[in-house]
């Protein structure tokens, strides 16, 4: 598939997630149970990006020794829990990572 087709399909499915409920479905069709489970979508899907990006290297191998990303991510997580700030989390993680690879 060409890049353009990929972009258009991704755009189409994204638009569909926004439009379908507004156009077709009444609020009552979403009960509290479905709403509750959907509220867990970010917690269910984002770690699937986070963990491999930290623990698996460019060659597709599991890497736990000599991996500065682990410590940097832990620092970012701690800063995130206490600051509840998106920007502080990203930048503390990047700063720690750069400190670990360039200075230490």
């Amino acid at each position, binding site marked *: 598939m060409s890049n353009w087709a990929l972009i258009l399909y991704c755009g189409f*499915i994204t638009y569909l997630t926004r439009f379908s409920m507004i156009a077709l479905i009444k609020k009552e069709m979403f009960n509290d149970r479905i709403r509750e489970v959907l509220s867990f979508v970010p917690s269910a899907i984002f770690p*699937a990006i986070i963990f*491999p990006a930290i623990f698996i290297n460019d060659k597709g191998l599991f890497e736990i020794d000599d991996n500065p990303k682990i410590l940097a991510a832990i620092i970012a997580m701690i800063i995130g829990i206490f600051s509840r700030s998106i920007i502080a989390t990203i930048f503390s993680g990047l700063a720690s990572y750069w400190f670990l690879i360039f200075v230490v």
Partner: protein
Amino acid sequence: MSNLKVFLKGIIDVSPLMIPVVPFGLIFGVLAIDIGFTPIETMAMSLIIFGGASQIVLLQLFSGGASSLVIISSVGAVNSRHLLYGAVVSEHLSDLKLVWKIIISYFLIDQAFAISNDYLKKNKDSNRYFHLVGGGATCWVIWQSTTLLGIILGAAIPEKLGLSFAVPLTFLALLVNDFRKFINVIVIITSGLVATLGYNYIPFKAYVIVAALAGLITAMILTTKMKKNE
């Protein structure tokens, strides 16, 4: 209030939420160029998809060599939360013409939903939906301009900086409020473990979808159990 005033109120209300969008847009633009998308393709992604987290997921999977079907379904899965937003705001939009529904749908994004959901509940004016359009349009301007800035900067940023590490960090940042909730933490660990262990074994790089399903099933089991114990 006039349509314009409601629109402006939407802009003002959403503004504080725009600060974190800036690094996201920059990171997206820089990474897309780094991975090998052309500037026009990169800009088209922001214009056509207009969904930050899902666009970064697209890049991550694309660079890992995932199949198109997996990328498209992962983007759909990440954006499935919009179904909930749509269902919640639909009652406020039910009297509108189809054209307006088509336009407003494009602007139904996290930040606009977050601020307008409150406003729509408290106001009964027939033009209250302009608040949602104001918030969405603001985010649109920020997202497109930071993507463009990222595209321009992308060429100048050295690969040695390891900016791809910004991807897990941005998603980590989106979960900061969930680290304090017990069930969420279990769901996060389950999904992360399944994705990491399955990374090389789940075919077609579908590890994102498999891990997300494992996480959601865990959430369903745990929330059911918690209710029984109450």
